[in-house]
């Protein structure tokens, strides 16, 4: 089995896809770092004040002012209200949620890329794992070996898991390394609040507690990894079902982007919460953001994702073992 996985990893590396992914991340991170840097600078200039409390207070006041406007969408109002009470809570506990530093950048970066960017990167790797063998015809060579089919597929699946971990790791390492040049490498022990839950437009703070930033980041990366594995599994299934890599990519791309769009407009269509793509934003539960649909929670989203993942896994293996290859 180990040799099979080794073999698959070798194929993956030969394709140089992993390097491309790493390059993409290495290119994007400086971009975001610069954007973040600009934002901080801009704020300082505007307020002429470096104290984060003042900055946060100004933000709170701005939000309050926006809330008092009558031409505001209900959705948006709810979001603002929750963010407002959260900021208020941070302020009251004297914690700066955005003290600049490489770890903070890392955190903000993964929080923003969990629902689209990272799944896309994963998809690029996984999409042709099986389908390229089918379209290239090499699948026949692979299946003529005296190895059970499910073992071959499992070795591919494990290789997929490994490369997902590798991608997530490179995001962590690159975002820390590159942004640290600008923001400094400190801030791992900064306290952060987690455990917010949302009900209606109220923020519930019963279970709020402080965790150091390094733990917070580790937790978020765990969630990111989970999401990437699920998206990887689904792409893997499509890759088994379809012979064309382009079709696999197309379908995944469409559903991921649809998820991003849906999350912004499904609040009244409740059963949409069973789609996997509106549940990708797991880090929002840790940081305490408004959910796209009433009644979603970390447990719910993870279960939905798990169900989709397991179903995809089973479909992939059953089809692969039963299918005729010609």
């Amino acid at each position, binding site marked *: 089995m180990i040799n099979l*996985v*080794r073999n698959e*990893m*070798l194929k993956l*590396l030969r394709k140089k896809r*992993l390097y491309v992914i790493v390059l993409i991340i290495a290119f994007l991170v400086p971009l975001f770092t610069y954007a973040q840097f600009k934002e901080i600078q801009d704020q300082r200039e505007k*307020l*002429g*004040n470096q*104290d984060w*409390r*003042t900055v*946060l*207070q*100004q933000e*709170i*006041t701005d939000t*309050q*002012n926006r809330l*008092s*406007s009558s031409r505001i969408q209900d959705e948006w109002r709810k979001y603002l209200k929750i963010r407002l009470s959260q900021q*208020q809570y941070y*302020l*009251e*506990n*004297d*914690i700066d949620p955005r003290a600049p530093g490489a770890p903070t950048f890392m955190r903000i970066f993964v929080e923003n890329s969990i629902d689209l960017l990272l799944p896309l990167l994963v998809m690029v790797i996984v999409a042709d794992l099986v389908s390229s063998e089918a379209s290239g015809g090499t699948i026949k060579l692979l299946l003529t070996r005296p190895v059970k089919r499910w073992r071959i597929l499992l070795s591919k699946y494990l290789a997929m*898991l*490994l*490369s997902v*971990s*590798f991608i*997530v*790791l490179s995001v962590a390492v690159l975002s820390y390394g590159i942004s640290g040049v600008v923001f400094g490498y400190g801030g791992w022990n900064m*306290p952060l*609040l*987690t*455990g917010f839950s949302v009900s209606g437009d109220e923020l519930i703070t019963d*279970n*709020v*507690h*402080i*965790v150091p930033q390094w*733990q917070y980041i*580790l*937790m*978020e*990366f*765990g*969630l*990111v*990894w*989970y999401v990437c594995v699920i998206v990887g599994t689904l792409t893997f299934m499509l890759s088994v079902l379809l012979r064309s890599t382009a079709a696999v990519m197309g379908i995944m791309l469409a559903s991921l982007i649809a998820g991003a769009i849906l999350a912004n407009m499904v609040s009244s269509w409740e059963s949409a919460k069973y789609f996997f793509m509106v549940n990708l934003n797991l880090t929002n*539960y*840790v940081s305490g953001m408004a959910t796209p649909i009433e009644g979603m929670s*970390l*447990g719910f989203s993870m279960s939905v994702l798990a169900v989709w993942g397991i179903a995809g896994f089973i479909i992939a293996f059953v089809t692969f073992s039963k299918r005729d290859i010609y």
Partner: protein
Amino acid sequence: MKKYTLTAVSIVSIAASLLWLFGLGWTLQDQFTANEKVEKPREKTESASTEKQDDKLTIVALGDSLTRGTGDADGKGYTGYLTDRLKEKTEQEINLLNSAVKGETSRGLLKQLQQREIQRQAKQADVIVMTIGGNDLFQQGAALESLDMNTINSKRQLYLSNVKKIYTQLRDLNKDAAIYHVGLYNPFSNLPDAKTTSSIVRDWNFQSAETAAEYEDIVYVPTFDLFQLQVESYLYTDQFHPNTEGYKLIAERVASLINFEQEEDES
């Protein structure tokens, strides 16, 4: 060479998988089990500059949409123009903290003053400017709801008792800062009921000024006269908030009241 890369990538990936799995497990443990409440880490950060910074002149602005600057084309409001004027007068760096919220009533402001951060700002202030009461009297800037004297009287009683508490609270927080409470003008002075509305606003202003006079260094700044004659040329299109010109008038008036020598002597 290739072989080494393969082994290296594989080992790193396996290690990473374990790490992320651990992170995931930790998340589940952390999010789904009850945790003890936040013990507030206040001691170490409390020291964060509640002290006045002597090199800067800190203006804290509180209140409603007037202080926020609703209706001003540049969004500066009178606080912005006031800062501009003061910058011409002095070399000192001026730091403006505007915490005004549109639609704020005296009750809202009183509540806002309970917030730690607002209190901290008030403590730091050299000058406090505020507008409050407009939303108590005029219903959200629409109009006077009724001209019935009884309702207005009861509104005013409520407002006055709130304002008293606001003044007291501000004085408790900051003994030295001069407080400028910018008064009301009558935005309806070109409408049919002008006589009645003007007298109501005048009365309101008078009572407020009386209340302010009970405290040290609280100045009730009249604006009624500024808008009295040409109200329409100083009003924004909503016929309630001042426009840029109107804000500049208010700013000039407040600016002329802020005396630098004194401020510097005190600090």
